[in-house]
């Protein structure tokens, strides 16, 4: 249970804030006061996750010599909901919907995510067909009743679900986001018959157009709700019992925080909280370092996550896919329509396995060696080569000092595996096979980043990369070279970045509503009334946790040329909207469009598909760090093979502390640390920044 702490710094004493991030393998903790920060990692306890949380909290408080009562705020994120969906461990759930549409969840968009796989598997709906029940009712696209709700049919459906023993019920009707009255009436009928069952309404969970995405989100919410409510209840009780009196907040996938009460109602909004914390971590570093255009690159054991951060705000989106079954392929998961931090995740990590495909090409991932047996060099019986094996053979790791010297790596085993699976089929020796594997995984990550930028209407050139996770600092410089990026920042505390990111998150909530408008005949009153209602809803949820701290409110219109596919988010000047504000909106849209697409389209009206309102407190500042000074310690050298040129040569190896004093370290070199190593490639130089991050700059 290693506990790392940054050196004590002078400053004002303040109240302590604690973040806990439950991941698949580790539960990460970060504790901060105004003066300093402690971080810690403990193993996750999947059967009862709160146990790992409690033991981790006890340990980090011991290290900091604090009592539970000293904690002023606890922020928590967890993959529990995500894992319940991936492993199908959620509640037995029923779904009541418009008659004639019980198969919306099964039909999806009627497409295959892989054109060439005859045996393709599509994700199964979370609710089987016999628990998806249609009831007569119908609204039109404007919310007018075409067919009144059949109350008897709802009652009969409730009885069917009771007999089937469901623990949770989702209700979603066509166009119910425009007019929720039928859904609300159905809820009352179900509630009287099934008083102990949780009920999720589509018009509350995800009030947006597109029935498949909305129903999928609602059903997923219902599916994880009982489990999450029980877990949150147990956690809260246990924390109070240990003497922690502080308010507890949950990290949302969209990057804000919410109360336990709201989390119990809408647990689906917690799914991507860990990666969201990582993006906030990078965003905070971007803000502190005044970097306007950033690529966040988080490479772990099984995947790499890439997020674009412009003007210190991570890119956000309104949809996400959970539990992808087709090798991380788009379209192979269950769609969720919730506010999320937008990132692309690909199956490329230290544990990703390498092989040779039918065309004699090196392929890396998405299969992973996992933690057990792990890469061949772990010496735990792994026979196939992973990216970590390739890095080791290239000389990038010191086999005796990996993971702070806690694990001795077996170079010979790595060589055997690489030679067998990659070298022999291609006629390469183990060292060149290793080079091929690393080049290919770097290329794959760079390609994913480039395509993601195109999908987002931007580019990677000229950005600064913020590299973290176990593999980010190792692969960062080479991926940057491939993307035309000349600056890479490796932050301190990179190993528990998500937990630290939680501490930077504002208390925030975002409400999104569909309301179709054309600028040419814009209904200012209707839009203003909707925005005001959305603001009230978001403000109420935030007020529960802001403790009267000042909040800010922002609104966004999702706009496009009439008929075009992709919407552009445009900030609303204010509301109620005056005529001049609508003209302003059109000008802002044109500016934003030109930025995305170079050339405007002549003579087209603009339409608005939906609106978002976000209410948030200001982000929380972190402790002020200061350089500690000191002269560089004498380094050693390691024989490392450069993947761009293929040449083997001596690279200097130094500690991060050795960079203090400010003199740049010229590459090729390695900055070694307990948790990872930062590679400074040939042509790059490294300097330590005031916040103890390492800045790599490409000189040539």
């Amino acid at each position, binding site marked *: 249970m290693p506990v790392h702490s940054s050196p004590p710094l002078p400053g004002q004493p303040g109240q302590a804030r604690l973040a806990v991030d439950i991941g698949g393998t580790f539960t990460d903790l970060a504790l901060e006061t105004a003066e300093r920060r402690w971080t810690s990692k403990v193993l996750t306890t999947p059967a009862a996750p709160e146990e790992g949380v409690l033991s981790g909290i006890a340990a980090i408080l011991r290290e900091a010599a604090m009592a539970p009562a000293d904690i002023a705020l606890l922020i928590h994120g967890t993959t529990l909901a995500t894992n319940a969906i991936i492993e199908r461990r959620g509640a037995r759930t029923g779904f009541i919907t418009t008659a004639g549409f019980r198969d919306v969840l099964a039909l999806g968009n009627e497409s295959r995510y892989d054109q*060439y796989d*005859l045996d393709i598997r*599509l994700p199964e709906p979370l609710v*089987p067909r016999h628990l998806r029940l249609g009831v007569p009712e119908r609204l039109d*696209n404007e919310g007018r009743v075409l067919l009144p709700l059949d109350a008897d049919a709802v009652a009969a459906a409730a009885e069917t679900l009771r007999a089937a023993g469901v623990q949770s019920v989702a209700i979603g009707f066509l166009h119910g986001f425009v007019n929720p009255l039928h859904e609300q009436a159905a809820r009352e009928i179900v509630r009287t018959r099934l008083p102990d069952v949780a009920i999720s309404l589509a018009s509350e969970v995800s009030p947006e157009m597109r*029935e498949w995405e909305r129903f999928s989100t609602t059903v997923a919410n219902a599916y994880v709700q009982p489990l999450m409510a029980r877990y949150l209840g147990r956690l809260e009780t246990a924390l109070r019992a240990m003497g922690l009196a502080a308010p507890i907040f949950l990290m949302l996938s969209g990057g804000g925080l919410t109360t336990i009460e709201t989390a119990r109602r809408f647990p689906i909004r917690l799914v991507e909280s860990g990666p969201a914390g990582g993006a906030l971590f990078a965003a905070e570093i971007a803000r502190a370092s005044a970097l306007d255009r950033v690529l966040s690159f988080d490479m772990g054991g099984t995947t790499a996550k890439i997020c674009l951060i412009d003007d210190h705000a991570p890119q956000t989106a309104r949809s996400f896919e959970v539990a992808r079954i087709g090798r991380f392929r788009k379209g192979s998961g269950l769609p969720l329509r919730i506010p999320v931090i937008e990132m692309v995740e690909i199956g490329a990590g230290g544990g990703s396995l390498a092989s040779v495909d039918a065309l004699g090409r*090196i392929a890396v991932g998405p299969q992973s060696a996992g933690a057990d047996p792990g890469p061949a060099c772990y010496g735990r019986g792994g026979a196939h080569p992973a990216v970590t094996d390739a890095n080791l053979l290239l000389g990038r790791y010191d086999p005796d000092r990996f993971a702070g010297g806690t694990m001795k790596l077996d170079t010979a085993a790595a060589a055997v595996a690489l030679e067998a699976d990659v070298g022999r089929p291609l006629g390469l020796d183990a060292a060149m096979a290793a080079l091929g594997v690393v080049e290919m995984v770097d290329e794959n990550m760079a390609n994913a980043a480039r395509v993601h930028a195109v999908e987002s209407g931007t580019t990677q050139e000229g950005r600064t990369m913020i590299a973290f996770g176990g593999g980010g600092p190792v692969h960062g410089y080479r991926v940057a070279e491939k993307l035309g990026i000349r600056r890479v920042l490796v932050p301190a505390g990179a190993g528990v970045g998500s937990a630290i990111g939680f501490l930077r998150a504002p208390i925030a909530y975002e409400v999104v509503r569909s309301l179709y408008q054309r600028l040419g005949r814009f209904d200012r009153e209707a839009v203003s009334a909707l925005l005001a209602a959305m603001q009230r809803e978001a403000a109420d949820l935030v007020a529960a946790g802001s403790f009267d701290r000042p909040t800010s409110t922002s609104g966004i219109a999702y706009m496009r*040329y009439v008929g075009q*596919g992709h919407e552009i988010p445009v900030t609303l000047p204010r509301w109620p909207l005056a005529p001049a504000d609508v003209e302003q909106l059109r000008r802002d849209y044109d500016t934003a469009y030109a930025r995305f697409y170079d050339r405007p389209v002549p003579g087209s009206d603009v339409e608005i598909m939906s609106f978002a309102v976000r209410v948030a407190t200001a982000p929380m500042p972190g402790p002020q760090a200061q350089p500690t000074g000191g002269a560089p310690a004498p380094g050693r050298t390691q024989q490392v093979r450069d993947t761009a040129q293929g040449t083997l040569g001596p690279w200097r190896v130094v500690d991060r502390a050795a960079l203090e004093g400010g003199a740049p370290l010229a590459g090729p070199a390695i900055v070694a640390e307990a948790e990872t190593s930062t590679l400074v490639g040939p042509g790059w130089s490294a300097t330590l920044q005031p916040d103890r991050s390492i800045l790599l700059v490409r000189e040539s």
Partner: protein
Amino acid sequence: MNTNTDALAAIRMQVMWNRLVAVVEEQAQTMIRTAFSTTVREAGDLSAGIFDLEGRMLAQAVTGTPGHVNSMMESVGHFLAKFPAATMRPGDHYITNDPWLGTGHLHDLTVVTPAFHRGKMVGLFANTAHVIDVGGLGMGPEGRSVFEEGLYIPIVKCFSEGRPNETFFDFIRAGSRLPVELEGDVYSLCACNDTGARRLAQMLDEFGLTGIEGLADFIFASSRRATEAAIGAIPAGTYAAEIWSDGYDEPVRLAARMQVRADTIEVDFAGTSGLSGRGINVPAAYCRAYASFGIKVVVAPQIPNNWASLAPLRMTIPEDCILNAPRPYPVSVRHVIGQLLPDLMMGCLYQAVPERVAAEGSSCLWNPPLRGGAGVSGQRRGNRPVAEDFEVITFNSGGTGATPRRNGLDGTAFPSGVRTMPVEATENVAPVVFWRKELRPDSAGPGRHRGGLGQVMEIATKGDLEFAVNAIFDRVGHPAKGRAGGGEGAAGGVRLASGAALRTKGFQIIPDGERLLLLLPGGGGYGDPRERPPAEVAADVRDGVLSPQASQRLYGVRVGADGTLDPETADAAPDQGAPGAAPTTARR
């Protein structure tokens, strides 16, 4: 062992190949992001690729639909024949929708753009997209010649050294019901090729290259070798199959004789029906596209599409057969025949590698083009209300064929790679109401693995006012066959909700107070239904997609309506005489 320098060079080739695939993927994503037509941005009816100076395709975007595979690939050669590479300048863009020089109907625009690096032309980018309107009769089978089917664009320059050809744009704006969308789409196609060309130049700089010849040789050699090895794994021999389409006014026979040799596969379509007087005819390039897809998905699914990986697949298509329609035959809805070709190819390959093919599926998209308002009902007169003017199409599918390992997919497109759009979105752009859109019980072909289920769709307008459907449906008279003892999927149906049958093809009125009822076909089953685990049969009954009667008749499994299995009778022999129970096979 190679020397390190050779090894590095070989690894670099692989890295550059990967990069090229990413470049064309960026090209395709740019199109999806900027396109106006729903067919491109929602449905994904597009493709994108990079070509060498001889017009040979090096790489194609993964995003896209199979119908464009060979056809777009062939089209670049036609562009180069009219505008030789030496005449091309930076900033030029060339365009056509000629069905015989492009991808088979006027709705597909193909744009070709030369790519330059340090002043020298190094390759070409091409893309194809299905746009929403090109004037004429609109998507449908009713045309009697291609001239009725819309605006005909020969290969012309739409941008010259970056300047738009305003005469060209004047013509297309004037010729379309949706001029803004059409013009916007042309801009989008050009922009997406520009993106590809920019990326290619950056790649050449990064790797210190002056051209793509060396890389092309490497890609072609690797692909050729891998494809030939894959063909070598198929038992050599001659395999024949046939399949029937409902046709426009009479059934259409598609026949194929496939010769699998050591390193090539040759298909002869002799015996196929002659041309149709309506727009279901298939130009040869489109026939080659879907036939190649059908072979590749079985023989070499992992090998990317390029000139060399497709070269060993050779087609002989007799003149004047429906798969080799000459100009000016009507071809607007050539997909309705063309999308049966993978089933035909798999009918041949079943005889060689039965464990690798799927049963027949619904296969042809069941897209209902709907129109209402004055164009159908005339102007409002007297007290008679008339629907608002609208024109809308959704992309829907029946069930796919089962495979030796899995059930077919319910209501999923195959072989087409397109997506459908939400009912809520459709109802927001047109005054239509979908009263039902759900799985169709008892439509799956029985088998050890059952076929995919079809769908039931019931469509009306708001207020049940008159509207029209321009039908392009198939597998009503000729349902999907099973394989290896699996049974047929249910036939499709096109009706008024009150019961009267409609024609499967052509423009028809749905009168006031009526609704359109579409019964989408099911996929064929694979293997003997009696070998299907009774628990799976019971689960289908529990889920309401198989009736208790059918479970006993087809599978010999007695199940209560609640899905409880009666173990006593689980082994009872199925009633072989019942309709729909006869196991069929495409084997001849």
